[in-house]
């Protein structure tokens, strides 16, 4: 029986093609592979589910074991966040044309180029920068690449990172910087979470290529010292690199306003489902200066004229990018990453517009403030742990309640709630703390339900 995915497995066609090639069987086509390398066993794989119906039953059966954030009430964030995904975003990224296109030229794939150019244009407005790349894997990769770019631009080999950068992301950065680039962490103030500027001054030197911090930070607080940090970095000839959650930028100042030279961050909150972390996509943005543009390893799509007056064409900007840092061993290679999520983020920004982004940011602020207030009323809980402004996430301390986060989360789970991320191993100095995330998907009732459940758990 010919398999539905393999048209030429139909015996007559197969025979005809073999005849045309001039061989008796397919084996002859593998003549270059020596017998000693031939796999003559049978791969131990399950018997195939030959009908589509059986396949669906089988896979859905496995997936049914999952409990989703639609079924449970979710307060997890920490690098992947639950936001509302507009229907049009899904409609567009499921279009067969976009879903199954790949590396065509700016003629037959003009639409792909334009959609990604428009994505970059809208992200550029959000962060107030003129150059934005075709997206990379995730925020962690975007930060890693931004830091490597900074080392190439400055010709220096050390980067300073806020200690409050998430450990998951930090691990990616460390691996990506190894072995050429030294990663040094800058202390933070326990009361505010904010960067310790004295420690920064101590560690900044003529070896420093960049200072990196995030706004809002992994721990949810807003770092208000951006201007001072950038100024200190610039005084030493280093660049200021800032990671950012774009959902905050309808209400928060873009990092370019306080001196960031390179901005990076995560696109997942912009209309992309969480997908167990599979929806991540990273962006990088800079000013339109040749020394920055030259160091992007990513594709950059630009507008170009065609032979027809008034027609928009596209193409790769500065394709033969002459790096100013020749000692850099090779250029980072960008392969297939997350273009489809770039297109999706563009659709999201077009749908929301300037008012929508402001309302989104403001609504998140209000809900998150409400949640903090409700939680802080619970005996034994401290929320937020850090003094100062937050965006959608905040740290809750259970130490005084005499409960571990793990215990609390187990109890919440029994009540159909995913409690905040356990920070006790990542930031032991904070005690029994968890990172809670509140977004526009949470209603007052949801937050009240959490508060009541927590009250119940720690009683």
């Amino acid at each position, binding site marked *: 029986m010919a398999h539905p995915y393999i048209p030429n497995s139909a015996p007559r066609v197969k025979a005809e093609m073999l005849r045309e090639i001039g061989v008796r069987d397919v084996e002859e086509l593998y003549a270059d592979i020596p017998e000693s390398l031939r796999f003559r066993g049978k791969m131990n794989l399950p018997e195939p589910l030959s009908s589509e119906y059986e396949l669906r039953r089988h896979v859905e059966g496995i997936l049914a074991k999952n409990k989703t954030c639609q079924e449970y009430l979710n307060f997890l964030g920490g690098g992947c966040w639950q936001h509302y995904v507009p229907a049009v975003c899904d409609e567009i990224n499921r279009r067969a044309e976009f879903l199954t296109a790949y590396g065509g030229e700016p003629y037959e794939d003009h639409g792909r180029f334009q959609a990604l150019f428009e994505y970059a244009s809208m992200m550029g407005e959000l962060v107030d920068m003129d150059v934005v790349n075709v997206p990379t894997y995730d925020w962690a990769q975007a930060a890693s690449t931004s830091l490597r770019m900074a080392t190439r631009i400055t010709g220096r080999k050390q980067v300073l990172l806020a200690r409050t950068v998430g450990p998951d992301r930090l691990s990616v950065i460390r691996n990506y910087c190894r072995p050429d680039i030294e990663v040094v962490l800058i202390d933070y103030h326990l009361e505010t979470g904010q960067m310790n500027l004295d420690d920064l001054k101590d560690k900044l030197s003529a070896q420093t290529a960049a200072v990196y911090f995030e706004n809002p930070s992994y721990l949810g607080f807003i770092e208000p010292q951006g201007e001072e940090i950038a100024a200190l970095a610039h005084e030493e000839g280093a660049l200021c690199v800032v990671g950012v959650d774009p959902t905050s930028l309808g209400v928060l100042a873009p990092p370019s306003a306080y001196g960031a030279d390179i901005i990076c961050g995560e696109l997942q909150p912009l209309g992309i489902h969480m997908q167990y972390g599979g929806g991540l996509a990273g962006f990088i943005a800079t000013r339109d200066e040749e020394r920055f543009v030259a160091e992007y390893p990513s*594709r950059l799509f630009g507008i170009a004229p065609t032979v027809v007056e008034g027609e928009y064409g596209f193409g*790769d900007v500065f*394709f033969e*990018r002459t790096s100013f840092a*020749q000692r850099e061993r090779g*250029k980072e290679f960008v392969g297939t990453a997350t273009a489809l999520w770039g297109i999706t983020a563009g659709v999201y920004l077009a749908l929301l517009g300037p008012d929508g982004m402001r309302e989104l940011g403001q609504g998140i602020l209000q809900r998150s403030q409400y949640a903090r207030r409700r939680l802080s009323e619970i005996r034994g809980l401290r929320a937020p742990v850090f003094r100062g402004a937050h965006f959608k996430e905040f740290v809750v301390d259970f130490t005084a309640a005499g409960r571990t986060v793990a215990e609390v989360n187990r109890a919440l789970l029994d009540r159909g709630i995913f409690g905040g991320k356990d920070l006790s191993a990542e930031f032991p100095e904070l005690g029994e703390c968890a990172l809670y995330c509140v977004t526009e998907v949470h209603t007052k009732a949801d937050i009240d339900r959490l508060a009541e459940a927590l009250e119940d758990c720690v009683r």
Partner: protein
Amino acid sequence: MKKLGLIVNPIAGMGGRVALKGTDGREVVARARRMGAVPESPRRAIEALERLVGLRGQVEVVTYPQEMGEEEARRCGFEPQVIGSIRPGETTAEDTRRAAREMLALGVDLVLFAGGDGTARDIYDAVGEEVTVLGIPAGVKIHSAVYARNPRLAGDLAALYLQGKATVREAEVMDIDEEAFREGRVTARLYGYLRIPYQRRYVQGLKAGSSPGEESALQAIALAIIDGMEDDFLYVVGPGTSTRPIMQMLGLEYTLLGVDVVHKKQLVGKDLAEGQLLELLEGRRAKLIITPIGGQGYLFGRGNQQLSPRVIREVGKENIIVIATREKINSLRGQPFLVDTGDAEVDRMLSGYVRVLTGYDDWIMYRVTG
């Protein structure tokens, strides 16, 4: 309107068919004619010009009379502006030089010339790098890299350049002593560089973000060499545009066509001959930095005879650093590097594989044959 200068050396290529290896010198031309040689270059020039007919009306052709270009241009339907004067049937090298100079003065955008190595040398003598030129291969000897691989490709490249779709690069002009060549000895030297069009590829890099250019690669190679310099070694820097960035980056004077020596990043010998090199190398450890010369991949024996078998032995095979960009390697189309030092034993010693530095910490393994 763009201006194209056209120069046909009408006698180039006559020697080949009658195995005379070149037509430098009147006597040889006469001998070739007596042996029944017919001019090759007009036919080849026409082949190239045919690829330019699409540009008629957009390009003005400036050329010399009769067989030096006028006839070929008219055959292809151009209405050329004809300058200068010649003695038909008795054109000389001086005619080529004069034509090139006059075309330069008229502000042509490109000089397209049909000839061989001798013609390229004449063009070089007349205009140097002041104007972009391109050779249509028509001579017996084509060791110079200023020629397109065949006449049609010369026409295509010229068309691209005139349409503003090509950049320029420097290419080697080789000088081979024809007398010696006829006697079976090759004594080629690097005569100079001309500016020729270079086709930029505008295709998109499927998934790649960008591709470093050739210029960038040369800079990286130079940096790698300089970063690796050790104080107890002399560095013998061979001729060519590939080694030039090393000297430029060190801020040293250099001899593009000759051999310089560097020690502790200072110049200790400039444009040295074999004897001077041997004197300097005596009892010292040295590294020799070379690049394949011309379009044919010669490492030794073409254009760098100063680097004689004795010099090579003195330095030692392990101390030879070969540098080249990937573009240069790819232009060899899989042909191995060649060595022809004049000493069979040294050629044998050099044969096998060599590491070639193609970027910063980027090497290839490449074959060398004698």
